């Protein structure tokens, strides 16, 4: 038997005696190739994604990088995706979105804070997307923002980043603020912190 170049379908050649077994083998290979094609189509239709929110206020201590603990699951289709085959969010570890499979993700974090008083001229709010609990480079990405020094109340800032994750790696959205007041300040519960991930590529394609 020989094999075709792409999908390795067996077929009989001149040194074979063409038999029912040869035809059976070729048919079986075609069958498997069709199953593989269907699997790819299913995966194509269900790239995995997740969105979580922090609906209740969370107290953030001044000058302390704090992981947001998410209490509301908006979407998690990891278990529906043949590529992921597992959930991203687990309420038992509510700060984490954990990769159910090796993948490249686009991550978006939106941090809402409710400042009890203005931060002053050296005040900042930082939204950090962190890999596997990192607190410094290279496992952190994000944005640092300087609100108007005299303004209190609701403030928001967003960050986008891309990550190559191994299965079991997790990302967190972390908040940091500093300034003149002693704090602590709460996260905003009107437009609350939100964290989203979407698979955008696979390290290897089946």
């Amino acid at each position, binding site marked *: 038997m020989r094999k075709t170049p*792409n999908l390795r379908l067996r077929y009989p050649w001149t040194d074979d005696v063409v038999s029912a077994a040869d035809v059976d083998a070729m048919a079986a290979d075609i069958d498997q190739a069709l199953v593989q*094609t269907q699997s790819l189509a299913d995966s194509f239709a269900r790239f995995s994604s997740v969105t979580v929110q922090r609906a209740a206020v969370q107290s953030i201590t001044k000058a302390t990088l704090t992981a947001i603990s998410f209490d509301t699951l908006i979407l998690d289709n990891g278990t529906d995706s043949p590529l992921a085959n597992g959930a991203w969010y687990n309420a038992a570890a509510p700060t984490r979105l954990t990769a159910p499979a090796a993948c*490249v993700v686009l991550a978006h974090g939106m941090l809402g804070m409710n400042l009890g008083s203005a931060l002053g001229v050296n005040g900042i709010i930082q939204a950090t997307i962190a890999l596997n609990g990192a607190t410094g480079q290279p496992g*952190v990405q994000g*944005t640092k923002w*300087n609100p108007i020094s005299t303004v209190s109340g609701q403030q928001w800032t967003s*960050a986008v980043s*891309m990550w190559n994750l191994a299965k079991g790696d997790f990302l967190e959205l972390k908040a940091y603020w500093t300034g003149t007041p002693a704090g602590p300040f709460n996260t905003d519960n009107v437009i609350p912190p939100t964290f989203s991930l979407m698979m955008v590529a696979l390290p290897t*394609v089946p």
Partner: protein
Amino acid sequence: MSGTTPVEGYPYPLPADFADVQDAFRLATAVDADLRAEQAPFRSFLARPSFIARQTVNGSGFISGTDTLAVGAIDWDNTGGLTIGTTNWNQPANQQPSWWMFGATILVAVVSGTPVVGDVNMGRINVTTTDQVAGTSSTTSFYQRNDETNTGGEWINLFAMAPIYQGSVNAALLLNGSTQKTTQAGSRFWGMYMGPVN
């Protein structure tokens, strides 16, 4: 003499020439080629062209001017467009005109002196593309300005969507101030293919 299937036109042996291995060969290779072609868009989507570059050492300090992120490590790249030691991602030459999304986190390190609140810190993504007809290249710049807060280094997060053809992209820090700062190790820039322009 072979028969052919009514829809796809696959050849198959008839009872009169069942032992002709050429028919089996033709059938197997025809099915193989067709299925591979049908799988192509799925494989292409799952292996979406994308890259993540990371700077691994701090840049040189400067007060006013521009410092472009250097590719010190490749966290991810299935395009072949990143080279360690360079500053640009180069679009695959055989890719059609395409929409891409690019982004960066530029970490700003203090080199000397006490940073002055309000000094200008800006991130910039430059996207250079080629005109398909004229062959000329042009550059579009995307900015994010996060001025100095003197709180232990700035973080500038910026992103852009742009059409690009036979082009290149880089990310840079722009300063206009009074103390020395630079791009910090751990800064990243990344991109992912969104789809064809047409």
